[in-house]
Structure formats: C-alpha cells, structure tokens
C-alpha cells in the first residue's frame, strides 16, 4: 500500500512533463535548424543561379579575366576581386591599429567614468547607417584629401576604404575590449608585481592573453569590410578597374568597383532576368562567399596558433 502510493508519486506528473520536455526539445531544435536551413538555402540558390550564369559565360574566363564590362558582355571577375581586397586592406590598416589601441585604452587605462562616456560613444559610431558614411566620404573626405594634395578622382577607392575603416573601428574596439576585460586581474597583478609598467602589462600580458578574442574582432570587422556595399558604391565609383601593381597609388586614387558594387550595378542596371549581366550577380555573390569563407578559415587557423589560453 505504502509502496503503491510512493510509486504513484513518482509517476503521476511524468506523462505531461515528458511531453512538455519533448516539445521544448523540438522547439529549440527547430530554431537551431532554421538558421542552418537558411544558410544552406542561400548557398544553394547562389549556386543554382551561378550555374545558370556559367552556362552562358565561360567559367575560366570569368575567374581569370582582367576586364569587367558587363554591358558589353565582358565578365572577368579579377578587377572586382582586387578592388575588394584593396578596400579591405586599407580599411584594415585604418581600423586595426586604431581599434586595438582604443580597446587597450578602454580596458586598461580609462577610468570608470571615462569608460562610461567613451563606450556608448563608440557604440553610436557603430549604429550610424552606412549610407551616411558613404555620403561623408564623397562630400567631405574626398575634397579634404584633395585639398591635402592628393590627386584623387571624384570617385576613388582611397576615401571609400578609409571610411569603411572608420566604420569598422567600433567593431574591432568593442569586441577586443570585451576580450581584454575578460583577462583575469590576477594576470595583471602578476605583471605589475614583477615591475612591469602599465604599457608593458597591456602589451605583454593582456593582449597575448586576449589574442583569440582580438583576432575574432579582426575577422568580423574585415568580413564586414569585404561585404560593405553602400560606402564603396557612393564614394568608390562604379568603374571596374584591374589592380595595377606597377602603380599602386593609382589603384587608390582612381575609382574602382568592388564585387559588392558590381552586384548593385547588376541589379540597378537595365539588365533583365535571364541575361548574363543579371546572372553575373550570383556568380559574384558566390565568389564573394568563398573569399569571406576562406578568410575566416585562415584567420581561425592564425588565431588558434597564437592562442594563449588562461584559466
């Protein structure tokens, strides 16, 4: 008798409870699966449309061609790829040192009050729509740089890249700062206890201990720079130009068309569905996807190699 009621206690609510738990399980699984599904479908869609493009245009000439003139049916993707790389490289040169230094300041040097002012200010910077940055690059930055003596075209990759760099600074600084703040104080104390200065502790202890987080901030920021569209369309121009290694400054000072800008062009031009000009968008998109993807892989490798884990 006693045993039976005990059993009943153990099993009474079990049925409803198990059903509920199952429901939660599937609900959560559904959400997780949805993100995977969306990602996969995007890649598949891109691939399918890209295949349609490659039926009309030779893939080899697409990937090795150094001229892009979509309205005339010349589809060589290299000028677009190199323009994208130029923009990414210059924006990295702008954003990585400034962003990292800002993160060190916020995490190691700033007083609590200073931090409470600066952090939100940086986050506002991150919230400005990119179209505003594009406008600033075109209307202010380019004229300034010209006044400063640079022989810039009205549309040029230099202003565009600098502005992209400014745009991604908050990304670098905010994520890096989180990584640095997460370094335990005991490590800082160990450094100070050995007679290290604040700068030595920051560079020799905190940054190495936070390096994997700092690296991920670079990866995220650069992926953002690669995919950035509005600024390069507005300030960089729409004219595809192959990278000229013999005259590196010319690449920056003249207009150029990045992959993203070329995709905008394909959408906004008169090209109608079914033409190679229209489908070129998907081929570029797929190329862009692989560029970002391989960059992420590479950066993860580098981060893993320099990782200094703390407990």
């Amino acid at each position: 008798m006693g045993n039976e009621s005990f059993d009943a206690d153990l099993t009474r609510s079990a049925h409803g409870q198990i059903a509920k738990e199952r429901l939660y399980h599937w609900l959560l699984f559904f959400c997780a699966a949805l993100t995977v599904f969306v990602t996969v479908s995007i890649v598949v869609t891109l691939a399918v449309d890209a295949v349609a493009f490659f039926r009309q245009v030779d893939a080899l000439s697409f990937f090795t061609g150094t001229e892009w003139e979509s309205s005339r049916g010349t589809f060589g993707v290299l000028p677009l790829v190199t323009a994208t790389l130029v923009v990414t490289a210059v924006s990295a040169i702008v954003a990585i040192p400034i962003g990292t230094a800002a993160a060190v300041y916020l995490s190691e040097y700033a007083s609590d009050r200073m931090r409470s002012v600066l952090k939100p200010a940086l986050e506002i910077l991150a919230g400005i729509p990119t179209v505003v940055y594009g406008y600033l690059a075109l209307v202010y930055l380019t004229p300034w740089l010209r006044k400063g003596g640079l022989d810039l075209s009205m549309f040029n990759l230099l202003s565009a890249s600098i502005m992209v760099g400014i745009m991604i600074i908050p990304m670098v600084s905010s994520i890096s700062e989180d990584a640095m703040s997460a370094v335990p104080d005991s490590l800082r104390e160990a450094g100070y206890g050995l007679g290290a200065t604040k700068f030595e502790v920051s560079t020799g202890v905190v940054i190495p201990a936070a390096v994997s987080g700092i690296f991920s901030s670079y990866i995220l920021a650069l992926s953002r720079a690669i995919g950035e569209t509005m600024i390069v369309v507005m300030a960089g121009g729409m004219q595809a130009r192959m990278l000229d290694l013999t005259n590196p400054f010319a690449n920056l000072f003249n207009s150029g068309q990045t992959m993203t800008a070329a995709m905008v062009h394909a959408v906004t031009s008169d090209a109608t569905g079914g033409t190679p000009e229209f489908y070129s968008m998907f081929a570029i998109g797929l190329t862009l996807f692989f560029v970002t993807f391989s960059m992420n892989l590479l950066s993860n490798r580098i981060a893993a190699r320099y990782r200094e884990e703390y407990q």
Partner: protein
Amino acid sequence: MTRDTPLETDGGDPRADGSGTAVADSAAQTDSSDESLLDSSFDVEDRSHASEDTDAIVEARDIDVYYGDEQALQSVDVAIPEKRVTAMIGPSGCGKSTFLRSINRMNDLIDAARVEGELLFDGKNVYDDDVDPVALRRKIGMVFQSPNPFPKSIYDNVAYGLEVQGKTDDVDEKVHRALERAALLDEVEDQLDESGLELSGGQQQRLCIARAIAPDPEVLLMDEPASALDPVATSKVEDLIEELAEDYTVVIVTHNMQQAARISDKTAVFLTGGELVEFDDTAKIFENPESQRVEDYITGKFG
C-alpha cells in the same frame, strides 16, 4: 635554541603599545620550554640561520589603509628584518593581505585605496612622491594566493620579469637558476617550451615563485601562497620558503597558524579591524604571547 636580542632593541620599538619588548622576550627565552602558556601543539622549528637578528629592511610607521570610507589597517607599526621569514597571521578580513600589498604599493591599483603613514624600504618612504611604484616592485617580488602563471611557456613565464626589467644578459642561465631555486627545474627541464598552465597547481605556484625570484628582488612578498595547494605541494612550497630566506627577506601572509609556526622567524598577529596586535619572535608568539587576544586566537578560542 631561541633567538637573541629581538630586532626592536637596535632600532627602537616603534610600536605604541609596547608589546613584545626585549624584557618580555628574554623571559620567553627562559620560560618557553617548561612554562609555556600553551600546549605545544605548534611545532616551532629551530631555524639555525635565524639565530641572530638583522636590520629591518621594511619598516611600517603608523600605516593606515582605507578602502573608500572603510579603514582596513589601523596605525600599523612593524619592522621586518632582512633575510628572515616574517609571517602575518590573523583571521579573514583582518588586513594582513592589505598590509602586504601596501609594501609594494599594489594597493595603488585599486582606485578606492588610500594609504597614510610611512612605509620605509631600505630607509626610504615608498609613499614619497618621487618613488616610482614600478621601480619599487622590481625590488620587491610578489607571489599570489592562487597560482597565476601567464598563458605563456614555462620559460617565458620566468623570463618575463627579466625582460621588463631590462635584465637581458644571461637570460637562459637566470631562468634555469630561478627554476632550480624554486625546486622546479628537475620536473620541467624537458618542457620549458610548454605552457605554464599545463603544470599542476603546486608546480604552477613554484613556477610563480621562480618567476618572482628570477629578477633577484630584495624582498619576496607571499600572499597565502599555499592556500590553493594540496598538502604535498604545500610542504614543498614551505621547504622552499625556508631556503629562500637565506637570500631573500620573505614576508608571508597565511591563515594557517601551523604554517606560520613552522616556517617563520617573526610573526605579526593582525586581529579584526585591521589592528596589528602583536609582533615578535615566532616562538614567543606561539608559546607565550603578551596579548590575551592573541593567545585566544592562537588557541582557537576566537577567530
């Protein structure tokens, strides 16, 4: 077997309450064997090299420390003898760690901390305006409560202090010697390139000790260095501390009274409220303390 003249007689007793005077101490010398107030549950070791007192290398004069509005230390006076082990004991929150951290100005890192009074190191007040805490910390090494090796290789951990202090000659040799002195070299000789975090807790703490002594400081501050270690590792660290006292002045905070009794020459007892209640030879403190409160604390009636 016990110590001769206590330190205070040559420097003058800086403490206002006058506890632990030379008279009381000589009494302890004669009485400690048979008339000890306490059960001799504390094994106060004979430390032959400590048979004579040395000059004070660190001297606190009326030190008050505040964290914001809260007072963590109340007019502490203490003279820490050179090349001896001085233990700071007391219940949690009594200010012993605070005192330790005020010696090398680690309290500077806490915004709310404020130190008043004089703290002399080699006769110079370290809180003078012209003292650079970075330079001070190069002469006063520190080992922390839980092992905190850098996420770097064992070698780089030990070399770090040399590097920041610009002592870049014979780094290899200095690293090896420090590891050897920290009784760790034999265990890690083949893995100097591996991360310091791969070591066990006890090894990590000895690594931290090696790191602290590599730049050859004059004083070694240890903030409960064995509290996160198992008994075997603890006894290794304790042996090490006794050896280190041949070359360094060691100031160790511990709340393990047996440990203080085993390894120290002098003991300072802090009690609640950040007050240094008694400072004297370790044997005297554990066998025949002046203060009733200290006796109660040591016998476990309080704290």
